């Protein structure tokens, strides 16, 4: 079983999925993407997700319909609607469906990360949360707590970051001393290999 928090992003614009992937993968999430609502729902049949992001306007099934399907099959799964088109009608309908929130384009890494954390926090607080999700969260803590992003934050990431930050000029000085020597070595090695190849050919 995969112990990383699972995120599904449904958007017909592949760049949106890649943006989520780029931001969240580094933070310890596993991101899956789907280009249509139908594809997203298929994925949900084979995998359990901790949060689903869906674009509101897509060819075929739109985001509201996707949210309807998700809420009918997995009501515990938080759904966040991505929209550049936010209308009051859409938002009212989505709220009735229990959509956890809206996020408007353009998205920044901070928005992506904070909305994911917020959606997952709400999920953890929800009493009707699926046992599977709770079990998985428990396993995350028991097996590899450092993979849980919120635990990461609370368990000394800042301290580690600062230590690395302060160590960086010293390590950089080491590189400055070592790299010229290494460069000469690499040039010499390449020259030697080229010479041998030329000699062998003749």
């Amino acid at each position, binding site marked *: 079983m995969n112990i990383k928090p699972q995120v599904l992003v449904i958007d017909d614009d592949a760049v949106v999925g890649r943006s989520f992937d780029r931001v969240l993968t580094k933070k310890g999430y596993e991101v899956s993407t789907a280009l249509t609502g139908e594809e997203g729902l298929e994925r949900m049949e084979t995998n359990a997700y901790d949060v689903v992001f869906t674009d509101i306007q897509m060819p075929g099934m739109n985001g509201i319909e996707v949210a309807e399907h998700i809420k009918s099959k997995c009501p515990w799964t938080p759904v966040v609607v991505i929209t*550049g088109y936010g209308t009051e009608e859409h938002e009212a309908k989505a709220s009735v469906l229990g959509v956890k929130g809206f996020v408007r384009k353009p998205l920044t890494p901070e928005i992506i990360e904070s909305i994911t954390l917020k959606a997952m926090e709400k999920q953890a607080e929800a009493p009707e949360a699926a046992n599977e999700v709770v079990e998985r969260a428990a396993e995350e803590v028991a097996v590899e707590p450092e993979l849980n992003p919120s635990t990461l934050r609370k368990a000394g990431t800042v301290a580690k970051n600062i230590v690395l930050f302060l160590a960086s000029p010293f390590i950089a000085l080491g590189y400055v001393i070592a790299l010229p020597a290494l460069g000469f070595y690499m040039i010499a090695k390449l020259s030697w290999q080229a010479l041998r190849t030329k000699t062998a050919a003749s």
Partner: protein
Amino acid sequence: MEAIQARHNLADMTYINPLPVRIWHWVNALGFVLLVLTGAQIRYTDIFGVLTFESAVKLHNWVGFAVIANYFVWLGYYIFSDRITNYHPVLDARKFATNFFQQAQYYSYGIFKGEHSPHQVQPYDKFNPMQRLAYQLIMLTAAPINFVTGLMMWDTQRFANWIAAVGGIRVVDTIHVAIFILFVFFIFVHAYMGALGRTPITHYREMFTGYEEH
């Protein structure tokens, strides 16, 4: 139309430089230029005659304090932000050396052939290996050293013990000027590299908007 624009923004841009970084950058740029100009005026009074020595010293001191304060804006932002990873060292020396030489090859050859940079700019990894090394040394070594040596020369009485500890005022002055020369060199290289985007002004525009344009 707005929706299309929003989609275009997301598709073609990555948010790399948040507002505090951009404010710091431009205040720092202005401060550094003023420090270099007033520093040159103080050092080479016989060559430049724009300001009197006294005015140049006064302006240099005030701008120096502003740049030091601004440095702490930068430091505070990065220390309390996840983006601190941009300044983290790469601990895998083999990987770093390989990427470093790839980047050097790009700058010395590939860029003139129209190739793409081997490094992809990302919010948590915005510097290529050569930039990373340069900025670690400039921001965490050269700049603090110049701030401290500047402070020592600002009030030699107050910092007399520090000055004596490093070998006297000549040593302090030499270090300060040597780093000043490094910064002059850096400003020219930085401005030139800034013009190597998709168009000559792309990188400059990015430093105002915060968005890296692909």
